């Protein structure tokens, strides 16, 4: 054991590093690991230097203990009490602009070291950092017992396992950590956090990680009580396999039993999520109007057929006043509940802006600016918005990144409305888009759809395509508008030949009858 006392000053940091690096080198750690151990200690040391003795001088003591299988570094000071483990971990997935500057160093310290312990004793902060030297355990256990272990009694070769003690609340390992050893619990209990399961004395944990080809912990283990364990590294486990087939079978059975238990728990959890998704889907569908006005001036029908996974398509129609009908169709980027929520917001905003009597381009410009302000998740939505004067059949419309609709004139030909693609809603503030006009003569029809229609796939990965859509429309245009849409839906279904529907299929059609 080596111990040195330094005045807690930044200028002594080099000397402190030298002491720690020498100890790490004695432990035969690789150069990269020596750097990482220094990194872990640096955070602790700088904390003491900067914050332990506000306004006065003080000392800090570093002790280095090289054991056969681990390096233990103690960093002690008599400054103000501070437990670095009490800080929450930073969100390492947060973008840099949102990072709090602090916390990162302590997070990395915990990540690098195998154990980090803190206690306050005799008015001193005592931080202990431990790094195991896995290869060295193997060497130390080189002279393993050759004769098979006695059956029954305690089958675990505790003599050859390393005894370790933990306090209640200590984290033994975290999900995602490298799985390099398993633990026999002699006293106390461990809680596996993610699967909320208690493992009690006489049992083993960590064996799945040892067998797993991914070498990763699948769950985090925290001491539910003070703990006495015996640990065995992966290499030793494999050695014992050769020497004690009974132990080997036991371990494999235990591992498979736990695997099945986990699978059951996960299946149950997945079923719960799926049922919640179904409910979300129903709520989403119930937001779309399904009662279609019966008017002499026009005929309207729409449908949205959601994909298996909840999506973000929508349509809407409503009267702005007694002369004007507004109808819109939209497609939110992405899938799942976030898309559905985004869709709900967009649909609500469009209606409330439209009800103010604004032109279509102004409605959408306002909606875009409102969404942009708080769009942290960077979702976006494409929208085609139309306002129809029911007396004249005049349509005024604008396009924010959506597929152009088709219009059928009296000659019976369907053509895509020629309009610029426009920019999607929700990404850039102050985007402008020109409003266009078109007059529907009595009998003319406009058909709006989302890309779920044209991009519906068959098992050969071919798309339904705009050409097929045009053909189907021409074929079924003379029916009642509801039947036209239903027939197109059937055409798509027949085309897909059972291939899973990957996107929402949404269509809205309006036929003008005359004012």
């Amino acid at each position, binding site marked *: 054991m080596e111990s040195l006392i330094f005045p807690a000053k930044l200028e002594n940091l080099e000397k402190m590093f030298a002491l720690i690096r020498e100890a790490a080198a004695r432990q035969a750690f690789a150069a990269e690991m020596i750097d*990482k151990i220094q990194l872990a200690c640096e*955070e602790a040391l700088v904390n003491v230097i900067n914050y332990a003795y506000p306004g006065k001088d003080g000392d800090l003591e570093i002790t280095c203990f090289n054991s056969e299988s681990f390096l233990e570094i103690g960093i002690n000071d008599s400054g103000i009490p501070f437990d670095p483990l009490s800080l929450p971990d930073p969100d*390492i997935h947060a973008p*840099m602009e949102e990072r709090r500057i602090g916390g*990162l160093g302590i997070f990395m310290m915990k990540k690098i070291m195998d154990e980090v312990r803190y206690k306050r004793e005799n008015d001193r902060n005592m931080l202990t950092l431990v790094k195991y030297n896995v290869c060295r355990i193997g060497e130390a256990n080189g002279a393993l017992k050759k004769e098979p272990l006695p059956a029954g009694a305690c089958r675990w070769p505790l003599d050859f396992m390393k005894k370790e003690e933990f306090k209640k609340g200590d984290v033994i390992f975290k999900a995602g950590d490298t799985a390099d050893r398993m633990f026999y619990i002699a006293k106390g209990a461990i809680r596996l956090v993610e699967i909320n399961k208690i493992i009690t004395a006489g049992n083993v944990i960590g064996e799945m990680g040892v067998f797993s080809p991914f070498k990763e912990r699948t769950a985090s283990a925290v001491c539910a009580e003070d703990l006495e364990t015996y640990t065995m590294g992966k290499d030793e486990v494999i050695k014992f396999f050769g020497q004690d087939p009974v132990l080997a079978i036991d371990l494999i059975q235990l591992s498979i039993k736990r695997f099945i238990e986990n699978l059951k728990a996960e299946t149950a959890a997945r079923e719960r999520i799926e049922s919640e998704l179904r409910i979300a889907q129903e709520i989403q569908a119930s937001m779309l109007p399904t009662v279609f006005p019966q008017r002499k001036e026009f005929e309207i029908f729409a449908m949205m057929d959601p994909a298996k996974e909840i999506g973000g398509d929508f349509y809407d129609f409503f009267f702005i006043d007694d002369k004007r009908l507004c109808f819109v169709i939209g497609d939110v980027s992405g899938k799942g509940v976030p898309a559905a929520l985004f869709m709900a917001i967009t649909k609500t905003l469009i209606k409330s802006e439209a009800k103010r009597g604004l032109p279509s381009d102004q409605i959408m410009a306002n909606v875009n600016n409102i969404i942009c302000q708080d769009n942290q998740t960077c979702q976006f939505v494409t929208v085609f918005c139309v306002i129809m004067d029911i007396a004249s059949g005049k349509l005024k419309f604008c396009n924010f990144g959506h597929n152009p609709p088709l219009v059928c004139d009296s000659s019976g030909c369907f053509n895509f409305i020629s309009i610029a693609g426009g920019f999607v809603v929700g990404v850039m503030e102050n985007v402008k888009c020109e409003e266009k006009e078109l007059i529907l003569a009595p009998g003319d029809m406009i058909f709006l759809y989302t890309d779920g229609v044209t991009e519906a796939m068959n098992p050969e990965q071919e798309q339904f395509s705009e050409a097929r859509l045009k053909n189907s429309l021409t074929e079924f245009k003379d029916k009642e508008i509801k039947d036209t849409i239903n027939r197109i839906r059937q055409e798509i279904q027949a085309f897909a030949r059972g291939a899973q529907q990957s996107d929402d299929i949404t269509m809205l059609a309006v036929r003008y009858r005359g004012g």
Partner: protein
Amino acid sequence: MESKYAVSCNNEMVKVELCGRLDATNTEGLQIELKKFAGQKIAKLIFFAKDLEYISSAGLRVIIFTKQKIGVDAEIFLIAAQPAILSVIKMSGLDNFMTIQESYSE
């Protein structure tokens, strides 16, 4: 062990060359050097790390600080970093917010 660095700026592009060991003993100077660009329009922040041997959390903080205080809209590049440095960057999750490249040409 000393860290050396060279900072230059032109065309809204700040280039930082890092050498040696960047830890709590020597990051302050670099931070002061970079602070000078606060308030200027910076499009790119490029850290050249070919000769950087070691970076600690104090070094990472300088990168986060630079992004927050100087280049909120800037794209961050890390060029030619050694595996040990990349491993620390990845541990902190910062790799998701910078472009990591073998070399840089304008």
